[in-house]
């Protein structure tokens, strides 16, 4: 889905670039170049005062730099300036810093230069050489035996390999990758740019032969704010992925009354060491800046600075209920207040306090959020804390209301510990604004409604049962739809994880590494928060104080289940299945490829996998899904629009997974539209045969042309399948138009979708029916319209029967997609009036919509990779499966009945000739009419007076009845026989209609 485009500067490749010849050592290299020291002003000014050239010994033996020099020439220059080096022996892994000219701004680096030169280097582009001598080089592209290393940067006209490094800047130096270890003799490949940070001979050595050591990562608050006379403490911790943190000291700013206590070293590599910074009640008012340094068993250290701030204890000015008030906003907004409450929960950006006694008024919340930007240091859950800060009404982006909180906190004073607050019981549907910031307990189980942001944000939307898209159930603009929209909006809460960034470990995910929409959760106790949510907007959120308990009440199904028929049809949106990747490569390993939209081909048009690795993961899920569905014909949406290449690839992969060439591709029709994606069809030739050519509607209204194919089943019966992918609801048009979101729950582009539906019904399908000569038509696909929306009403209004409403609604809500925590179906199955009686069943396989996005094929934006090749979250849409029981319109009942043909006699009164045929049901089962008695080979000149019609030139009589086993049906016949001929005929008896 994600398209990460790597922009490459190609200009350099186009210029004529010369490569210098190199000799001597390949172990000492130029590891960093910076030319903008002291340049610029304002925000973009250089921080460092001097240019510099950094060297590095990437080898395993020491190298003397005695008699060597670094030299510089401008980007196209031919004359070289020289800075001789000191007679130092550079040990393996050691850096060497050559400082060059200073600029007007910036400050000298704290990293002391090993040699100070005075060359004024260009900021963006230039050439730098390391030479095993001090004689100036010559020419634009110098060579010779003394040249040790060469770096062209920016637009330099000489470099090693394919081209120079990227251009540098005031805040960018060129770094040799992997700490200086990489050297493939290609400046463009070996260097990247980053914030300048010079290293010298005193810098910790980096042995290229050893894997780099991971640093210690310390986690410390920046401030420990306490009230004078009250002791307090802050929790600090540090980890090291490849080391054991085993020490902590106050390295600077140590003072009486401030100490480290309770140090616990990490138990193992990757473990956390913890320590408390304690401040005594004897400290005088003031600020005490200090630094705590952690150390490990690898000789590494990491420090964190923090300040202990002691203030005079302020008196409480307002209680929490007073600040909250009964109104929508606080009357004390934008005033500084001091209040007091018990800490109920600490979260990533602050903490919640609650007045333990409250004011007894349910209209006023007893809790409030204290925003401290980072996790608060000096309070613990259960502390009674006195907080001074500014009362504010926080309105998250896209929110329709605000949330009262305290920010710009100047003092947090823990007064005492060991307090508890009893949560109040609530149910979803209560007015949550009255309990914002309070500790609550949901007494009813709630249902998971969305897990799209489980991985990215640790969020799960909860509601009473599954919420339905209003227009999935009721026509747009109807009072019922409006009412459902309102109740849906009021009936959700987002279960969060107390972290406001991507969690390191995906929360709440359970058995089989999933949490499915439709699962239920109990033991929901936490604090009512309000803030931004995944997908935009804001919502009330529950920050839990205890682990919620989830139940897998919506288990996975191995495959969709539906009644058997003689043809199984599926509709599957395969979520941008592309064999050309966003990185410009393709499934055959070619590079520089692209995807086509209209007349433009570009890798940025490729919407699917970013690369081969993602593609294989995507392919395996999709193949698994299609294999499990095992349909006789599948309509596919969102497959790359590159002829039949991609659908052929998918079909081959599917056949390989099955182990036999079961599926074939329906050849692409005349038009597959102008979008990057198309619709396609695959089918089982052993089960269906193509009847006539494929057809499409390439009208400009459809950038993804509808695709039709008529099939014949094994019994010869035909039907036509039309695969659709109507215009999406997203990517709204600019400016007001009929396609603008009308806020009627149908989203954008509804007017276009209505036109597409009308054109389908009124123009394209009639063409298909005329070509096939058969009125049996099944419309499937991603209509981008929920069940009762206007475009679907166009189809049902024309006599098409919605099979999902027919077969799924009686058992529960039909849905194939979840958006904004509401479920509905965009994926449809609508049968023509003549086909509908032959539809045996329809089902949705909820293998995708209910599953968390984080288990999909994508590699990016994932805290943990829980991918498996199982067909769950193979796409964002659930597939739809339809069972057809295609029957002839009529069947010969010769094997089911015994016919008795009575002779024909003359009625002297009427002048007519009369006869009869009787049918005895010998089938052992009831036969249901209508029945047709047809008289073949009736004597010429004889007319059957009581004929219901003729079929194939022969008269027939229709009788609509039910024939029980053993029952006899007698059908009298009356003939006109003007020629007085001997009457004979051959009776045939059929079930059905002609």
């Amino acid at each position, binding site marked *: 889905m994600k398209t990460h485009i790597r922009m490459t500067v190609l200009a350099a490749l186009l210029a004529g670039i010369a490569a210098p010849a190199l000799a001597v050592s390949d172990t000492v290299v130029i590891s960093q170049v910076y030319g903008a020291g002291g340049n610029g002003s304002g925000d973009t000014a250089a921080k460092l005062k001097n240019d510099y050239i950094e060297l590095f010994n990437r080898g395993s033996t020491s190298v003397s730099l005695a008699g060597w020099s670094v030299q510089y020439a401008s980007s196209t220059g031919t004359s070289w300036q020289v800075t001789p080096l000191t007679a130092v022996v550079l040990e393996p892994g050691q850096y060497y810093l050559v400082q060059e000219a200073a600029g007007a701004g910036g400050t000298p680096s704290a990293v002391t230069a090993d040699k100070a030169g005075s060359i004024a280097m260009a900021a963006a582009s230039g050439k730098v050489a390391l030479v095993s001598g001090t004689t100036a080089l010559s020419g634009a592209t110098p060579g010779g035996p003394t040249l040790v290393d060469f770096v062209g940067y920016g637009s330099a006209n000489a470099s090693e390999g394919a081209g120079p490094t990227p251009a540098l800047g005031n805040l960018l130096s060129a770094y040799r990758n992997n700490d200086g270890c990489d050297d493939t003799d290609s400046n463009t490949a070996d260097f990247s740019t980053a914030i300048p940070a010079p290293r010298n001979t005193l810098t910790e050595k980096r042995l290229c032969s050893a894997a780099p050591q991971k640093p210690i990562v310390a986690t410390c608050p920046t401030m420990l704010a306490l009230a004078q006379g009250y002791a307090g403490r802050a929790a600090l911790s540090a980890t090291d992925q490849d080391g054991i943190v085993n020490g902590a000291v106050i390295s600077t700013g140590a003072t009486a009354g401030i100490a480290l206590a309770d140090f616990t070293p990490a138990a193992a590599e990757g473990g956390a060491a913890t320590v408390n910074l304690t401040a005594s009640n004897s400290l005088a008012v003031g600020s005490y800046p200090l630094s705590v340094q952690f150390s490990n068993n690898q000789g590494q250290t990491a420090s964190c600075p923090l300040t202990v701030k002691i203030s005079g204890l302020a008196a409480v000015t307002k209680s929490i209920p007073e600040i909250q008030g009964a109104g929508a906003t606080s009357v004390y907004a934008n005033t500084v207040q001091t209040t007091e409450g018990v800490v109920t929960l600490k979260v990533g950006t602050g903490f919640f306090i609650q007045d333990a006694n409250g004011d007894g008024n349910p209209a006023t919340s007893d809790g409030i959020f204290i925003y401290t930007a980072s996790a608060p240091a000096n309070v613990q859950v259960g502390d009674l804390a006195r907080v001074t800060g500014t009362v504010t009404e926080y309105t998250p982006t896209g929110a329709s209301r605000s949330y009262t909180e305290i920010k710009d906190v100047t003092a947090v004073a823990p007064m005492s510990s060991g307090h508890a607050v009893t949560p109040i019981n609530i149910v979803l549907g209560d007015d949550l604004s009255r309990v914002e910031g309070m500790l609550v307990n949901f007494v009813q189980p709630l249902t998971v409604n969305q897990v799209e942001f489980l991985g990215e944000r640790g969020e799960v939307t909860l509601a009473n049962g599954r919420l339905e898209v209003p227009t999935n159930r009721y026509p747009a603009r109807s009072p019922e739809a409006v009412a459902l929209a309102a109740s849906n909006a009021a009936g959700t809460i987002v279960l969060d994880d107390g972290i406001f960034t991507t969690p390191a470990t995906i929360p709440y995910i359970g058995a089989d590494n999933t949490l499915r929409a439709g699962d239920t959760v109990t033991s929901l106790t936490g604090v009512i928060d309000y803030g931004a949510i995944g997908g935009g907007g804001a919502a009330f959120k529950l920050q839990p104080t205890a682990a919620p308990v989830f139940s897998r009440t919506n288990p996975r199904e191995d495959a969709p289940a539906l009644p058997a028929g003689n043809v199984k049809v599926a509709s599957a949106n395969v979520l941008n299945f592309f064999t050309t990747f966003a990185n410009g490569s393709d499934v055959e390993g070619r590079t520089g490829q692209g995807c086509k939209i209209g007349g433009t081909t570009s890798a940025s048009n490729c919407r699917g996998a970013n690369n081969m690795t993602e593609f294989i993961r995507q392919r395996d899920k999709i193949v698994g899904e299609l294999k499990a569905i095992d349909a006789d014909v599948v309509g596919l949406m969102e497959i790359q629009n590159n002829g039949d290449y991609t659908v052929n690839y998918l079909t081959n992969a599917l056949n390989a997974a099955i182990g036999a060439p079961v599926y074939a591709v329906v050849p692409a029709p005349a038009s597959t539209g102008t979008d990057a994606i198309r619709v396609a069809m695959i089918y089982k030739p052993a089960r269906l045969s193509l009847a006539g050519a494929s057809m499409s509607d390439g009208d400009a209204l459809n950038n993804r042309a509808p695709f039709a194919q008529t099939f014949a089943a094994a019994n010869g019966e035909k039907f036509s399948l039309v695969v659709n992918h109507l215009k999406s609801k997203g990517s709204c048009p600019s400016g007001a138009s009929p396609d603008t979101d009308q806020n009627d729950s149908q989203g954008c582009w509804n007017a276009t979708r209505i036109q597409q539906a009308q054109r389908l019904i009124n123009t394209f399908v009639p063409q298909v029916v005329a070509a096939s000569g058969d009125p049996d038509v099944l419309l499937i696909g991603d209509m981008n319209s929920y069940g009762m929306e206007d475009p679907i009403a166009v189809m049902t209004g024309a006599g098409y029967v919605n099979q999902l409403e027919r077969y799924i609604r009686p058992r529960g809500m039909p849905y194939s997609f979840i958006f904004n925590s509401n479920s509905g179906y965009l994926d449809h199955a609508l049968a023509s009036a003549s086909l509908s009686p032959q539809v045996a069943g329809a089902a949705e396989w909820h293998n995708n919509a209910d599953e968390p996005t984080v288990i999909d094929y994508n590699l990016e934006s994932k805290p943990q990779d829980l991918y498996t090749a199982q067909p769950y979250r193979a796409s964002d849409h659930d597939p739809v499966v339809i069972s057809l029981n295609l029957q002839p319109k009529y069947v010969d009942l010769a094997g089911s009945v015994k016919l008795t043909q009575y002779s024909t006699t003359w009625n002297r009164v009427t002048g007519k000739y009369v006869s009869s045929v009787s049918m005895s049901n010998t089938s052992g089962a009831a036969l249901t009419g209508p029945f047709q008695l047809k008289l073949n080979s009736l004597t010429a000149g004889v007319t059957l007076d009581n004929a219901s019609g003729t079929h194939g030139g022969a008269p027939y009589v229709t009788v609509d009845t039910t024939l029980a086993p053993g029952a006899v049906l007698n059908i009298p016949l009356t003939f006109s026989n003007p020629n007085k001929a001997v009457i004979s*005929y051959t009776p045939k008896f059929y079930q059905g209609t002609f």
Partner: protein
Amino acid sequence: MFNLILSARRAALALALTVSSGLAAAGAIHVNLDTSAFGGGNGYLDMQLGMSGGPVVTAQVSNLSGFDTSSLADGWGYTLANGTYTLRSDVLNDLFHAVPFGAMLGFDLTLSSDADVDGHVTNFLVSAFDSSGVHPVGVFDPFNLSLANIAWTPAAVQGGDGSIAVTATDPGVATVPEPGVWLLMAAGALGMALTRRRRVH
């Protein structure tokens, strides 16, 4: 479909005939028609053999009693030889014979055909009309005007036996199997009884 209006004795007879399994490829019955309910005067007895697409069926009408021999028979498609009228199912036929009403009319009827596997049933219809020749009399089937509908079902296999079933609409109709038929039926019944006794052991 067909109304059977018979006395108890006649019903027993008709039933015996209908279920008979031992008739020869030719079946013969004697038909009596009590015309006392038709009023006095003259009229006509109409007999026809239906047309059918199966094997040709032949109907022979003989030993006419009570018929008005002074009036010629009318109709078409039949032959008369030695006092026996012959009608064929592959020829459009009608035997329209003058009769005096009020007395008992009778005749022998023999139906025969080859075997047939296609379920054709050929009907020999007996109707009566008043002296105008256009108004049916008696209790008749309104569909085909028959007082008696004598249906011939050919043998299902070559060499097998056909069967006759009589549907009498008029209460004056009585049919009696010919003596030979009775004997055959008795023999068949005895054989069935023996077969059943043997199966006991």
